[in-house]
Protein backbone atom coordinates (compact mmCIF):
# COMPACT_ATOMS: atom_id res chain seq x y z
CA UNK A 1 0.00 0.00 0.00
CA UNK A 2 2.88 2.44 0.73
CA UNK A 3 3.30 3.10 -2.97
CA UNK A 4 -0.35 4.13 -3.36
CA UNK A 5 0.11 6.52 -0.47
CA UNK A 6 2.77 8.46 -2.29
CA UNK A 7 0.84 9.85 -5.23
CA UNK A 8 -2.31 11.94 -5.40
CA UNK A 9 -3.33 10.35 -8.66
CA UNK A 10 -3.19 6.81 -7.33
CA UNK A 11 -4.88 7.63 -4.07
CA UNK A 12 -7.75 9.38 -5.83
CA UNK A 13 -8.24 6.28 -7.95
CA UNK A 14 -8.50 4.06 -4.85
CA UNK A 15 -10.98 6.45 -3.29
CA UNK A 16 -13.10 6.61 -6.40
CA UNK A 17 -13.22 2.85 -6.61
CA UNK A 18 -14.31 2.74 -2.94
CA UNK A 19 -11.24 0.68 -2.06
CA UNK A 20 -10.40 3.05 0.74
CA UNK A 21 -12.15 5.78 2.76
CA UNK A 22 -10.88 9.23 3.65
CA UNK A 23 -11.02 8.19 7.30
CA UNK A 24 -8.73 5.26 6.58
CA UNK A 25 -6.36 7.54 4.72
CA UNK A 26 -6.37 10.01 7.58
CA UNK A 27 -5.59 7.29 10.11
CA UNK A 28 -2.66 6.12 8.04
CA UNK A 29 -1.17 9.61 7.96
CA UNK A 30 -2.01 10.47 11.58
CA UNK A 31 -0.13 7.37 12.57
CA UNK A 32 2.88 8.31 10.48
CA UNK A 33 2.93 11.87 11.74
CA UNK A 34 2.72 10.72 15.36
CA UNK A 35 5.64 8.36 14.90
CA UNK A 36 7.71 10.86 13.00
CA UNK A 37 10.61 12.57 14.78
CA UNK A 38 11.51 15.15 12.18
CA UNK A 39 9.40 17.98 13.69
CA UNK A 40 7.83 18.83 10.38
CA UNK A 41 4.66 20.13 12.01
CA UNK A 42 4.09 22.94 14.50
CA UNK A 43 0.43 22.25 14.90
CA UNK A 44 -1.35 18.95 14.45
CA UNK A 45 -4.80 18.06 15.78
CA UNK A 46 -5.83 14.42 15.45
CA UNK A 47 -9.50 15.00 16.31
CA UNK A 48 -9.79 17.77 13.78
CA UNK A 49 -8.34 15.64 11.03
CA UNK A 50 -10.67 12.74 11.82
CA UNK A 51 -13.69 15.07 11.94
CA UNK A 52 -12.85 16.54 8.56
CA UNK A 53 -12.13 13.10 7.11
CA UNK A 54 -15.57 11.97 8.21
CA UNK A 55 -17.17 15.01 6.61
CA UNK A 56 -15.40 14.21 3.35
CA UNK A 57 -16.56 10.59 3.52
CA UNK A 58 -20.14 11.78 4.11
CA UNK A 59 -19.91 14.13 1.15
CA UNK A 60 -18.65 11.31 -1.01
CA UNK A 61 -21.44 9.01 0.07
CA UNK A 62 -23.87 11.73 -1.01
CA UNK A 63 -22.28 11.75 -4.41
CA UNK A 64 -19.91 14.68 -4.16
CA UNK A 65 -16.36 13.86 -5.08
CA UNK A 66 -14.00 16.78 -5.39
CA UNK A 67 -10.80 17.18 -7.36
CA UNK A 68 -8.50 16.34 -4.45
CA UNK A 69 -11.08 14.71 -2.24
CA UNK A 70 -9.45 13.52 0.97
CA UNK A 71 -5.89 14.13 -0.13
CA UNK A 72 -3.73 14.84 2.94
CA UNK A 73 -2.04 18.21 2.64
CA UNK A 74 0.37 20.05 4.93
CA UNK A 75 0.06 23.82 5.24
CA UNK A 76 3.02 26.06 5.95
CA UNK A 77 2.27 27.91 9.16
CA UNK A 78 2.47 31.21 7.30
CA UNK A 79 -0.98 30.70 5.74
CA UNK A 80 -3.78 31.96 7.95
CA UNK A 81 -6.20 29.13 8.64
CA UNK A 82 -9.59 29.81 10.12
CA UNK A 83 -9.86 28.83 13.80
CA UNK A 84 -6.48 27.12 13.62
CA UNK A 85 -3.47 28.63 15.31
CA UNK A 86 -1.18 30.40 12.84
CA UNK A 87 2.22 31.40 14.18
CA UNK A 88 4.64 32.21 11.34
CA UNK A 89 7.09 30.24 13.50
CA UNK A 90 7.30 33.18 15.86
CA UNK A 91 6.81 33.71 19.56
CA UNK A 92 5.10 36.99 18.73
CA UNK A 93 2.20 35.06 17.14
CA UNK A 94 2.36 31.94 19.24
CA UNK A 95 -1.28 32.25 20.30
CA UNK A 96 -2.76 33.86 17.22
CA UNK A 97 -5.93 32.25 15.90
CA UNK A 98 -7.19 33.82 12.68
CA UNK A 99 -10.92 34.13 12.07
CA UNK A 100 -10.30 33.89 8.34
CA UNK A 101 -8.88 31.48 5.78
CA UNK A 102 -6.22 32.45 3.24
CA UNK A 103 -7.32 32.37 -0.39
CA UNK A 104 -4.85 29.65 -1.35
CA UNK A 105 -5.83 27.31 1.48
CA UNK A 106 -9.49 27.98 0.92
CA UNK A 107 -9.04 27.08 -2.76
CA UNK A 108 -7.57 23.76 -1.62
CA UNK A 109 -10.32 23.15 0.96
CA UNK A 110 -12.98 23.88 -1.64
CA UNK A 111 -11.59 21.04 -3.73
CA UNK A 112 -11.67 18.58 -0.85
CA UNK A 113 -8.15 18.80 0.58
CA UNK A 114 -7.67 17.20 4.00
CA UNK A 115 -5.32 19.40 6.02
CA UNK A 116 -3.15 17.36 8.33
CA UNK A 117 -1.31 20.16 10.10
CA UNK A 118 0.63 23.39 10.01
CA UNK A 119 4.22 22.89 8.98
CA UNK A 120 7.31 24.38 10.52
CA UNK A 121 9.24 27.25 8.97
CA UNK A 122 11.94 29.79 9.64
CA UNK A 123 10.47 32.60 11.72
CA UNK A 124 8.40 34.81 9.39
CA UNK A 125 9.88 32.81 6.51
CA UNK A 126 13.27 34.44 7.03
CA UNK A 127 15.87 31.77 6.59
CA UNK A 128 17.21 28.88 4.58
CA UNK A 129 17.29 26.19 7.22
CA UNK A 130 14.06 26.06 9.27
CA UNK A 131 16.21 26.48 12.35
CA UNK A 132 15.06 29.98 13.30
CA UNK A 133 11.55 28.81 14.20
CA UNK A 134 10.42 29.53 17.76
CA UNK A 135 9.16 25.94 17.78
CA UNK A 136 12.50 24.29 17.09
CA UNK A 137 14.32 22.97 14.03
CA UNK A 138 12.88 20.61 11.46
CA UNK A 139 15.11 17.65 10.69
CA UNK A 140 15.74 16.62 7.12
CA UNK A 141 14.33 13.07 6.69
CA UNK A 142 17.21 12.35 4.30
CA UNK A 143 19.70 12.71 7.18
CA UNK A 144 21.89 9.62 7.13
CA UNK A 145 23.69 9.93 10.41
CA UNK A 146 21.60 9.94 13.60
CA UNK A 147 24.18 12.07 15.33
CA UNK A 148 24.51 14.57 12.53
CA UNK A 149 21.04 15.80 11.80
CA UNK A 150 20.70 17.85 8.67
CA UNK A 151 18.59 20.90 8.01
CA UNK A 152 15.55 20.56 5.79
CA UNK A 153 16.37 23.86 4.13
CA UNK A 154 14.07 26.80 4.43
CA UNK A 155 12.09 28.64 4.99
CA UNK A 156 9.40 26.10 4.00
CA UNK A 157 11.48 23.29 5.53
CA UNK A 158 8.58 21.73 7.43
CA UNK A 159 6.54 21.33 4.26
CA UNK A 160 9.44 19.90 2.25
CA UNK A 161 10.35 17.46 5.01
CA UNK A 162 6.72 16.38 5.52
CA UNK A 163 6.28 15.54 1.84
CA UNK A 164 9.69 13.89 1.67
CA UNK A 165 8.84 11.69 4.68
CA UNK A 166 5.40 10.93 3.20
CA UNK A 167 3.58 12.52 6.12
CA UNK A 168 1.30 14.10 3.53
CA UNK A 169 1.03 14.00 -0.24
CA UNK A 170 1.46 17.67 -0.85
CA UNK A 171 2.20 20.79 1.12
CA UNK A 172 1.93 24.49 0.56
CA UNK A 173 4.97 26.69 0.79
CA UNK A 174 5.92 30.26 0.19
CA UNK A 175 8.98 31.42 -1.64
CA UNK A 176 10.48 34.88 -1.30
CA UNK A 177 14.04 34.22 -2.38
CA UNK A 178 14.13 30.44 -2.66
CA UNK A 179 12.10 29.24 0.29
CA UNK A 180 10.31 26.54 -1.70
CA UNK A 181 12.98 25.56 -4.20
CA UNK A 182 15.93 25.25 -1.81
CA UNK A 183 14.20 23.00 0.80
CA UNK A 184 12.72 20.94 -2.06
CA UNK A 185 16.26 20.39 -3.27
CA UNK A 186 17.53 19.51 0.23
CA UNK A 187 14.71 17.05 0.89
CA UNK A 188 14.54 15.45 -2.55
CA UNK A 189 11.02 16.54 -3.51
CA UNK A 190 9.43 18.72 -6.19
CA UNK A 191 8.92 22.34 -5.27
CA UNK A 192 7.41 24.97 -7.52
CA UNK A 193 7.28 28.71 -7.03
CA UNK A 194 4.96 30.11 -9.68
CA UNK A 195 4.99 33.52 -11.31
CA UNK A 196 4.52 36.44 -8.93
CA UNK A 197 0.78 37.11 -9.00
CA UNK A 198 -0.37 33.59 -9.95
CA UNK A 199 -1.44 32.65 -6.42
CA UNK A 200 -3.16 35.15 -4.20
CA UNK A 201 -1.17 36.51 -1.28
CA UNK A 202 -4.35 37.26 0.68
CA UNK A 203 -4.16 35.63 4.08
CA UNK A 204 -0.49 34.75 3.85
CA UNK A 205 1.57 36.45 6.53
CA UNK A 206 3.76 38.87 4.62
CA UNK A 207 7.54 38.81 4.65
CA UNK A 208 8.51 40.82 1.54
CA UNK A 209 5.40 41.67 -0.44
CA UNK A 210 7.02 42.27 -3.82
CA UNK A 211 8.67 38.83 -3.71
CA UNK A 212 6.40 36.56 -1.67
CA UNK A 213 4.63 33.92 -3.69
CA UNK A 214 2.83 30.76 -2.65
CA UNK A 215 3.71 27.44 -4.21
CA UNK A 216 3.65 23.74 -3.56
CA UNK A 217 5.66 20.64 -2.70
CA UNK A 218 4.90 17.17 -3.99
CA UNK A 219 6.47 13.83 -4.78
CA UNK A 220 5.97 14.05 -8.50
CA UNK A 221 5.36 16.58 -11.25
CA UNK A 222 1.81 15.44 -11.94
CA UNK A 223 0.80 16.04 -8.31
CA UNK A 224 2.47 19.45 -8.34
CA UNK A 225 0.46 20.31 -11.46
CA UNK A 226 -2.81 19.26 -9.87
CA UNK A 227 -2.21 21.19 -6.67
CA UNK A 228 -0.93 24.29 -8.41
CA UNK A 229 -3.93 24.58 -10.73
CA UNK A 230 -6.18 24.43 -7.67
CA UNK A 231 -4.23 26.90 -5.54
CA UNK A 232 -3.73 29.47 -8.30
CA UNK A 233 -6.28 31.95 -9.55
CA UNK A 234 -7.27 35.56 -9.60
CA UNK A 235 -8.28 37.15 -6.31
CA UNK A 236 -9.74 40.65 -6.23
CA UNK A 237 -8.56 40.99 -2.62
CA UNK A 238 -4.94 41.10 -3.78
CA UNK A 239 -3.99 44.05 -6.02
CA UNK A 240 -1.01 42.18 -7.39
CA UNK A 241 -3.00 39.09 -8.33
CA UNK A 242 -3.03 38.31 -12.07
CA UNK A 243 -6.43 38.20 -13.72
CA UNK A 244 -5.69 35.34 -16.07
CA UNK A 245 -7.28 32.00 -16.76
CA UNK A 246 -5.29 29.27 -15.06
CA UNK A 247 -4.26 26.57 -17.56
CA UNK A 248 -5.05 22.95 -16.75
CA UNK A 249 -1.43 22.09 -16.03
CA UNK A 250 -2.10 18.46 -15.18
CA UNK A 251 -4.17 17.79 -18.28
CA UNK A 252 -1.67 19.54 -20.52
CA UNK A 253 1.28 17.85 -18.88
CA UNK A 254 3.62 16.37 -21.45
CA UNK A 255 7.17 15.17 -21.54
CA UNK A 256 7.73 16.19 -25.09
CA UNK A 257 10.47 18.80 -25.10
CA UNK A 258 11.53 18.45 -28.71
CA UNK A 259 12.79 21.79 -29.99
CA UNK A 260 12.48 23.50 -26.62
CA UNK A 261 15.33 25.92 -26.19
CA UNK A 262 16.95 25.62 -22.80
CA UNK A 263 19.39 28.28 -21.70
CA UNK A 264 22.45 27.66 -19.54
CA UNK A 265 23.46 30.94 -17.90
CA UNK A 266 27.24 31.18 -17.94
CA UNK A 267 27.29 33.41 -14.83
CA UNK A 268 25.95 30.53 -12.73
CA UNK A 269 29.06 28.56 -13.47
CA UNK A 270 31.27 30.01 -10.74
CA UNK A 271 34.20 28.44 -8.99
CA UNK A 272 32.26 28.60 -5.72
CA UNK A 273 30.01 25.69 -6.67
CA UNK A 274 31.10 22.30 -5.35
CA UNK A 275 32.23 19.94 -8.09
CA UNK A 276 29.48 17.35 -7.56
CA UNK A 277 26.79 19.99 -7.96
CA UNK A 278 28.37 21.25 -11.15
CA UNK A 279 28.63 17.78 -12.60
CA UNK A 280 25.04 17.01 -11.69
CA UNK A 281 23.91 20.21 -13.42
CA UNK A 282 25.79 19.25 -16.59
CA UNK A 283 24.25 15.78 -16.43
CA UNK A 284 20.76 17.20 -16.35
CA UNK A 285 21.64 19.36 -19.33
CA UNK A 286 22.90 16.32 -21.25
CA UNK A 287 19.73 14.36 -20.51
CA UNK A 288 17.52 17.15 -21.77
CA UNK A 289 19.61 17.51 -24.88
CA UNK A 290 19.43 13.77 -25.51
CA UNK A 291 15.65 13.97 -25.10
CA UNK A 292 15.33 16.55 -27.83
CA UNK A 293 15.87 19.94 -26.22
CA UNK A 294 18.14 22.50 -27.79
CA UNK A 295 20.75 23.74 -25.34
CA UNK A 296 22.02 27.27 -25.72
CA UNK A 297 24.39 29.37 -23.72
CA UNK A 298 22.90 32.57 -22.34
CA UNK A 299 24.13 35.44 -20.23
CA UNK A 300 22.51 37.01 -17.19
CA UNK A 301 25.19 39.63 -16.56
CA UNK A 302 23.88 41.02 -13.28
CA UNK A 303 23.53 37.65 -11.55
CA UNK A 304 26.23 38.35 -9.00
CA UNK A 305 24.35 41.43 -7.76
CA UNK A 306 21.07 39.60 -7.20
CA UNK A 307 21.84 38.46 -3.68
CA UNK A 308 22.93 41.83 -2.24
CA UNK A 309 19.99 43.44 -4.04
CA UNK A 310 17.65 40.95 -2.43
CA UNK A 311 19.19 41.47 1.00
CA UNK A 312 18.39 45.16 0.76
CA UNK A 313 14.89 44.94 -0.66
CA UNK A 314 13.51 42.01 1.31
CA UNK A 315 14.55 43.37 4.74
CA UNK A 316 13.29 46.86 3.76
CA UNK A 317 9.83 45.51 2.99
CA UNK A 318 9.96 43.20 6.01
CA UNK A 319 10.82 46.04 8.40
CA UNK A 320 7.56 47.68 7.38
CA UNK A 321 5.45 44.51 7.06
CA UNK A 322 6.41 43.43 10.57
CA UNK A 323 5.59 46.80 12.17
CA UNK A 324 2.05 45.57 12.82
CA UNK A 325 3.34 43.09 15.41
CA UNK A 326 3.32 45.59 18.23
CA UNK A 327 1.35 43.88 20.98
CA UNK A 328 -1.81 45.93 20.47
CA UNK A 329 -4.20 43.94 18.27
CA UNK A 330 -3.01 40.36 18.57
CA UNK A 331 -0.11 38.20 19.56
CA UNK A 332 2.43 38.37 22.33
CA UNK A 333 2.61 41.49 24.49
CA UNK A 334 5.17 42.23 27.18
CA UNK A 335 3.94 43.13 30.64
CA UNK A 336 5.81 46.44 30.50
CA UNK A 337 3.22 49.15 30.97
CA UNK A 338 5.35 52.25 31.66
CA UNK A 339 4.57 53.81 28.32
CA UNK A 340 3.33 52.81 24.91
CA UNK A 341 6.85 52.98 23.46
CA UNK A 342 8.35 50.91 26.25
CA UNK A 343 5.63 48.30 25.69
CA UNK A 344 6.39 48.25 21.94
CA UNK A 345 10.13 47.94 22.38
CA UNK A 346 10.08 45.13 24.89
CA UNK A 347 7.28 43.27 23.10
CA UNK A 348 9.20 43.31 19.85
CA UNK A 349 12.53 42.50 21.45
CA UNK A 350 11.11 39.48 23.27
CA UNK A 351 8.66 38.45 20.57
CA UNK A 352 11.03 38.29 17.62
CA UNK A 353 14.02 36.00 17.23
CA UNK A 354 17.56 37.09 16.35
CA UNK A 355 17.40 36.72 12.55
CA UNK A 356 14.08 38.56 12.30
CA UNK A 357 15.40 41.41 14.42
CA UNK A 358 18.56 41.57 12.33
CA UNK A 359 16.54 41.89 9.15
CA UNK A 360 14.17 44.47 10.61
CA UNK A 361 17.17 46.56 11.66
CA UNK A 362 18.87 46.27 8.26
CA UNK A 363 15.59 47.11 6.56
CA UNK A 364 15.07 50.11 8.81
CA UNK A 365 18.58 51.29 8.10
CA UNK A 366 18.41 51.07 4.30
CA UNK A 367 15.15 53.05 4.25
CA UNK A 368 16.19 55.70 6.73
CA UNK A 369 16.91 59.31 5.88
CA UNK A 370 20.23 59.71 4.12
CA UNK A 371 20.55 56.03 3.15
CA UNK A 372 17.44 55.46 1.05
CA UNK A 373 19.07 56.46 -2.26
CA UNK A 374 22.32 54.65 -1.61
CA UNK A 375 20.69 51.37 -0.67
CA UNK A 376 16.98 50.93 -1.31
CA UNK A 377 16.75 52.96 -4.51
CA UNK A 378 20.02 51.60 -5.81
CA UNK A 379 18.75 48.06 -5.25
CA UNK A 380 15.46 48.80 -7.04
CA UNK A 381 17.46 50.02 -10.03
CA UNK A 382 19.58 46.91 -10.08
CA UNK A 383 16.41 44.87 -9.78
CA UNK A 384 15.39 46.53 -13.06
CA UNK A 385 18.65 45.43 -14.66
CA UNK A 386 18.23 41.87 -13.42
CA UNK A 387 14.68 41.76 -14.69
CA UNK A 388 15.90 42.99 -18.09
CA UNK A 389 18.62 40.35 -18.20
CA UNK A 390 15.93 37.70 -18.01
CA UNK A 391 13.77 39.44 -20.61
CA UNK A 392 16.64 39.34 -23.04
CA UNK A 393 17.48 35.76 -22.21
CA UNK A 394 13.91 34.69 -22.87
CA UNK A 395 14.15 36.16 -26.34
CA UNK A 396 16.62 33.36 -26.99
CA UNK A 397 15.32 30.46 -24.91
CA UNK A 398 12.12 28.99 -23.45
CA UNK A 399 13.51 28.00 -20.07
CA UNK A 400 16.66 28.33 -18.03
CA UNK A 401 18.42 25.45 -16.32
CA UNK A 402 20.50 25.93 -13.15
CA UNK A 403 21.33 24.10 -9.96
CA UNK A 404 18.78 24.91 -7.24
CA UNK A 405 21.26 25.41 -4.46
CA UNK A 406 25.04 25.73 -4.19
CA UNK A 407 25.11 23.04 -1.50
CA UNK A 408 23.56 19.84 -0.26
CA UNK A 409 21.65 19.79 3.04
CA UNK A 410 24.04 20.86 5.79
CA UNK A 411 24.08 19.93 9.48
CA UNK A 412 21.82 21.77 11.88
CA UNK A 413 23.77 24.52 13.64
CA UNK A 414 26.15 25.14 10.77
CA UNK A 415 26.33 28.63 9.19
CA UNK A 416 24.22 29.96 12.03
CA UNK A 417 26.84 32.38 13.35
CA UNK A 418 27.45 33.88 9.92
CA UNK A 419 24.36 35.43 8.35
CA UNK A 420 26.03 36.10 5.00
CA UNK A 421 27.14 32.49 4.65
CA UNK A 422 23.53 31.51 5.27
CA UNK A 423 22.30 34.04 2.72
CA UNK A 424 24.51 32.48 0.03
CA UNK A 425 22.18 29.47 0.01
CA UNK A 426 19.81 31.50 -2.13
CA UNK A 427 22.35 32.50 -4.75
CA UNK A 428 20.68 30.52 -7.58
CA UNK A 429 17.07 31.07 -6.59
CA UNK A 430 17.03 34.78 -5.80
CA UNK A 431 17.50 36.15 -9.34
CA UNK A 432 14.25 34.60 -10.61
CA UNK A 433 12.46 35.84 -7.47
CA UNK A 434 13.57 39.40 -8.15
CA UNK A 435 12.20 39.13 -11.67
CA UNK A 436 8.94 37.51 -10.53
CA UNK A 437 9.60 34.45 -12.69
CA UNK A 438 8.32 30.92 -12.06
CA UNK A 439 10.89 28.40 -10.93
CA UNK A 440 10.74 24.74 -10.08
CA UNK A 441 13.20 22.53 -8.28
CA UNK A 442 13.20 18.91 -9.31
CA UNK A 443 15.17 16.17 -7.54
CA UNK A 444 17.97 15.07 -9.82
CA UNK A 445 21.04 13.12 -8.82
CA UNK A 446 22.88 12.91 -5.55
CA UNK A 447 25.80 14.60 -3.93
CA UNK A 448 29.05 12.82 -3.19
CA UNK A 449 27.61 12.22 0.27
CA UNK A 450 24.58 10.52 -1.23
CA UNK A 451 22.22 13.39 -0.41
CA UNK A 452 19.55 14.58 -2.83
CA UNK A 453 20.30 17.46 -5.17
CA UNK A 454 17.89 19.64 -7.09
CA UNK A 455 17.86 21.17 -10.53
CA UNK A 456 16.09 24.48 -11.03
CA UNK A 457 14.13 25.31 -14.17
CA UNK A 458 13.10 28.94 -14.62
CA UNK A 459 10.38 29.92 -17.08
CA UNK A 460 8.79 33.00 -18.59
CA UNK A 461 6.10 34.88 -16.67
CA UNK A 462 2.99 32.69 -16.47
CA UNK A 463 4.61 29.89 -18.45
CA UNK A 464 4.45 27.34 -15.65
CA UNK A 465 3.41 24.71 -18.19
CA UNK A 466 6.79 24.72 -19.92
CA UNK A 467 8.80 24.26 -16.75
CA UNK A 468 6.40 21.56 -15.55
CA UNK A 469 6.78 19.74 -18.87
CA UNK A 470 10.55 19.94 -18.80
CA UNK A 471 10.49 18.69 -15.19
CA UNK A 472 8.19 15.91 -16.28
CA UNK A 473 10.71 14.89 -18.89
CA UNK A 474 13.55 14.91 -16.39
CA UNK A 475 11.43 12.94 -13.93
CA UNK A 476 10.74 10.23 -16.51
CA UNK A 477 14.46 10.10 -17.26
CA UNK A 478 15.42 9.28 -13.71
Amino acid at each position, binding site marked *: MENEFSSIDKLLKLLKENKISVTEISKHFIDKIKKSEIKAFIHFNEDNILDNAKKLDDLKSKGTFKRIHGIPIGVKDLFCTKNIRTTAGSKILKNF*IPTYESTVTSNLLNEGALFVGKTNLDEFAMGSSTTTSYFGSTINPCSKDKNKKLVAGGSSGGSAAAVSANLCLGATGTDTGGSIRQPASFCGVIGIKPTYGLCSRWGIIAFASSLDQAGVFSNNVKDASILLEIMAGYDNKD*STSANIKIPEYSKNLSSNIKGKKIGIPKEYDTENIPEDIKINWMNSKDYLQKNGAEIISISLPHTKFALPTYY*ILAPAEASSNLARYDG*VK*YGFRSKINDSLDAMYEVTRNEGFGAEVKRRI*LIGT*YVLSAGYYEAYYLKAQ*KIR*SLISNDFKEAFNKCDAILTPTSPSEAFPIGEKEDDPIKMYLNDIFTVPASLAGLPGISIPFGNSNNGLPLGIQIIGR*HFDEQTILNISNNLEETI
Partner: protein
Amino acid sequence: MKIDKNTTLKIARLARIKINNNEIADYSKQLSNIIDWVQQLNEVNTDQIEPLKKIVEIPATFKGDEPELKDYSQDILENAPEKIENYFVVPKVVE
Protein backbone atom coordinates in the same frame (compact mmCIF):
# COMPACT_ATOMS: atom_id res chain seq x y z
CA MET B 1 32.58 49.77 10.43
CA LYS B 2 29.54 51.18 8.68
CA ILE B 3 27.17 51.01 11.61
CA ASP B 4 28.46 52.32 14.91
CA LYS B 5 26.77 51.84 18.26
CA ASN B 6 24.85 55.10 18.08
CA THR B 7 23.47 54.22 14.68
CA THR B 8 22.43 50.81 15.93
CA LEU B 9 20.61 52.41 18.83
CA LYS B 10 18.99 54.94 16.56
CA ILE B 11 17.62 52.36 14.11
CA ALA B 12 16.57 50.04 16.92
CA ARG B 13 14.62 52.93 18.38
CA LEU B 14 13.00 53.65 14.99
CA ALA B 15 12.11 49.97 14.68
CA ARG B 16 10.85 49.87 18.29
CA ILE B 17 13.12 47.02 19.27
CA LYS B 18 14.79 47.26 22.65
CA ILE B 19 18.45 46.41 22.51
CA ASN B 20 20.19 45.63 25.77
CA ASN B 21 23.54 47.24 26.46
CA ASN B 22 25.43 43.98 26.18
CA GLU B 23 24.00 43.35 22.71
CA ILE B 24 24.82 46.67 21.06
CA ALA B 25 28.36 45.78 20.01
CA ASP B 26 27.29 42.46 18.54
CA TYR B 27 24.45 43.95 16.55
CA SER B 28 26.65 46.76 15.29
CA LYS B 29 29.20 44.28 14.03
CA GLN B 30 26.68 41.99 12.35
CA LEU B 31 24.81 44.83 10.72
CA SER B 32 28.06 46.40 9.54
CA ASN B 33 29.13 43.15 7.94
CA ILE B 34 25.91 42.91 6.02
CA ILE B 35 26.06 46.54 4.93
CA ASP B 36 29.69 46.11 3.86
CA TRP B 37 28.68 43.11 1.83
CA VAL B 38 25.77 44.81 0.02
CA GLN B 39 28.06 47.73 -0.85
CA GLN B 40 29.26 45.70 -3.84
CA LEU B 41 26.20 47.13 -5.63
CA ASN B 42 28.22 50.31 -6.04
CA GLU B 43 30.16 48.52 -8.79
CA VAL B 44 27.09 48.94 -11.01
CA ASN B 45 26.52 52.29 -12.66
CA THR B 46 22.81 52.99 -12.35
CA ASP B 47 22.76 56.66 -13.34
CA GLN B 48 20.45 56.09 -16.30
CA ILE B 49 18.41 53.27 -14.78
CA GLU B 50 14.84 53.59 -13.56
CA PRO B 51 13.88 51.61 -10.46
CA LEU B 52 11.66 48.59 -11.13
CA LYS B 53 8.00 49.68 -11.01
CA LYS B 54 6.08 46.53 -11.80
CA ILE B 55 7.31 43.05 -11.07
CA VAL B 56 5.00 41.46 -13.64
CA GLU B 57 3.06 43.30 -16.34
CA ILE B 58 -0.48 42.90 -15.11
CA PRO B 59 -3.21 45.50 -14.73
CA ALA B 60 -3.92 46.67 -11.19
CA THR B 61 -7.04 45.55 -9.41
CA PHE B 62 -9.43 48.19 -8.11
CA LYS B 63 -12.48 47.86 -5.93
CA GLY B 64 -15.85 49.56 -6.05
CA ASP B 65 -17.34 51.90 -3.46
CA GLU B 66 -20.10 49.66 -2.08
CA PRO B 67 -19.66 49.32 1.68
CA GLU B 68 -19.81 45.93 3.33
CA LEU B 69 -22.02 46.51 6.33
CA LYS B 70 -20.73 43.60 8.39
CA ASP B 71 -19.56 44.29 11.94
CA TYR B 72 -16.15 42.64 12.34
CA SER B 73 -15.49 43.92 15.85
CA GLN B 74 -15.59 40.40 17.31
CA ASP B 75 -13.07 39.19 14.75
CA ILE B 76 -10.62 42.02 15.16
CA LEU B 77 -10.78 42.12 18.96
CA GLU B 78 -10.70 38.34 19.35
CA ASN B 79 -6.92 38.10 19.67
CA ALA B 80 -6.31 41.43 21.42
CA PRO B 81 -4.02 41.16 24.48
CA GLU B 82 -5.98 43.90 26.26
CA LYS B 83 -9.44 45.24 25.50
CA ILE B 84 -12.33 46.92 27.27
CA GLU B 85 -15.82 46.86 25.83
CA ASN B 86 -15.20 47.46 22.16
CA TYR B 87 -11.85 49.20 22.52
CA PHE B 88 -8.24 48.09 22.17
CA VAL B 89 -6.35 49.19 25.26
CA VAL B 90 -2.73 50.34 25.45
CA PRO B 91 -0.57 52.03 28.10
CA LYS B 92 -1.43 55.71 28.45
CA VAL B 93 -0.13 57.94 25.70
CA VAL B 94 0.86 61.50 26.62
CA GLU B 95 0.63 63.95 23.74
